């Protein structure tokens, strides 16, 4: 049985670029959610979000940057960081045995927004020639493949909020099945445009801004939760066939041992206990481990009314009495909901937490919803906690539920 080593981690997240900064901010419970700049967001009912605060264009020559939507810029920076972290020898050898697997919900949303603004608002025909190439959903994956000369499978998955958990899981499957030896896998999302934010607002799923402290607006599992907060960013991993990673002396962060997929098949937004529990069970079966072996769950925990109580019930169904003894946290309380990038970001956080013996907190959880009665690690992280196996949940509009499991190196020998 082939195994999958996680040898590289890279993030460009609202809570920090680079895993060390991200984890320091999460350990300290610092939220990156904030009031968005007045222009152009002043007309929003909830002008809050979790932006990435750095000038991405410095990473690219100007001739290239105009071909890249923000969603691809974020992806390329995070993927490069993961490749550097993995110390992969470049140029890659056996490029037909390498692949790219990316999740994104909305692709190049800013480019689409700008193109329609040109056509409908300015009534101009000067649509940028790169509009199609920058906005197409697979652009980020394509550019990563071009940068590293990768000739194996190059795939983009779009299953809304579980997109990049699916991308990581499907990448692992390529390695398990023997179709590939190295996969660059991750997720990317750049939804903080006026058009996208208005569309999400119209669905009445965005949190009301906290009147005192906007950074406390996303309150997973809380009685006072009022919805999700959108964030932007990208997270990538390098996955390698275990023995090959060992043979080249790679530093292995963790083993990606479980991937479970199950769909609700009932409603476009409303989740089901059955679908979420089935995905968790499928991941446990894939990893061939018992529910008692899971030491931490990074919850989907969106802070929408529907998700948090259903997810809590699903965890109780899978883990039974032990559910109350497993720390479960939603780091979305700090980095917001990165939609198609959420699953990859939260998997990276889960792996990095395991390496640091850290349990990141759920922030802004003063009074829990009576339906949400697990140990959510409210308000403060825990250090010195030995984690052998961790689970990361990603559930989605459309009903595609994906769950990943990572295990500490050495746990299985």
């Amino acid at each position, binding site marked *: 049985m082939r195994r999958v080593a996680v040898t590289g981690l890279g993030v460009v997240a609202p809570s920090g670029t680079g895993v060390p900064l991200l984890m320091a901010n999460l350990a300290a419970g610092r939220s990156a959610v904030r009031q968005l700049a007045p222009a152009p967001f002043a007309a929003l009912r909830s002008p809050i979000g979790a932006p990435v605060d750095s000038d991405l264009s410095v990473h690219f*020559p*100007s*001739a290239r940057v*105009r071909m890249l939507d923000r969603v691809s810029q974020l992806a390329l920076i995070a993927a490069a960081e993961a490749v550097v972290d993995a110390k992969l020898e470049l140029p890659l050898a056996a490029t037909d045995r390498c692949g790219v697997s990316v999740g994104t919900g909305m692709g190049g949303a800013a480019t689409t927004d700008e193109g329609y603004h040109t056509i409908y608002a300015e009534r101009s025909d*000067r649509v*940028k*020639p*790169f509009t199609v190439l920058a906005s197409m959903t697979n652009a980020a994956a394509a550019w990563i493949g071009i940068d590293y000369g990768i000739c194996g499978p190059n795939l983009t998955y779009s299953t809304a909020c579980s997109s990049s958990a699916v991308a990581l899981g499907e990448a692992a499957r390529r390695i398990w099945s023997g179709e590939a030896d190295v996969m660059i896998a991750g997720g990317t999302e750049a939804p903080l445009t006026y058009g996208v934010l208005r569309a999400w607002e119209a669905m009445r799923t965005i949190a009301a801004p906290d009147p005192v402290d906007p950074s406390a607006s996303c309150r997973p599992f809380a009685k006072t939760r009022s919805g999700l907060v959108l964030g932007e960013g990208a997270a990538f991993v390098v996955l390698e066939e275990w023995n090959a990673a060992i043979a080249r002396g790679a530093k292995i962060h963790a083993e990606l041992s479980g991937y479970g997929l199950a769909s609700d098949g009932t409603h476009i937004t409303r989740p089901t206990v059955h679908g979420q529990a089935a995905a968790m069970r499928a991941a446990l079966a894939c990893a061939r481990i018992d529910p008692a072996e899971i030491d931490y769950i990074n919850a989907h925990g969106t802070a929408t009314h529907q998700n948090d109580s259903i997810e809590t019930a699903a965890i109780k169904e899978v883990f039974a009495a032990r559910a109350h003894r497993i720390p479960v946290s939603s780091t979305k309380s700090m980095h917001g909901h990165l939609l198609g990038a959420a699953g990859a970001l939260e998997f990276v956080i889960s792996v990095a937490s395991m390496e640091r013996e850290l349990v990141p907190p759920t922030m802004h959880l003063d009074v829990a919803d009576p339906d949400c009665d697990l140990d959510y690690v409210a308000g403060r992280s825990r250090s010195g906690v030995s984690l052998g196996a961790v689970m990361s949940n990603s559930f989605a509009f459309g009903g595609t539920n994906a769950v990943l499991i990572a295990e500490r190196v050495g746990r299985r020998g």
Partner: protein
Amino acid sequence: MSTLETLKDILIEEFDLQRDQIMPDAELAALGVDSLDLLELMFKIEDRYKLAIRDDIPANLSTVNDLVVFVDGLLADDPDLHASA
């Protein structure tokens, strides 16, 4: 300013080129300007000269000088535009 120098300014700004790379006989492709870049470049030319390029862009624009000749042709069609540039 001559058309060549104006185009050099645009190319330097948009394509990270050095002025001495942009010789009249330089191939646009060799400067990293492919067919889609050329379309983007036409927007910059329209902005700089405050004109609207209504005709199709000729397929045989391969060197910097071809571009100079094309732009000079546009300007010759409307001398007022040239004065404002």
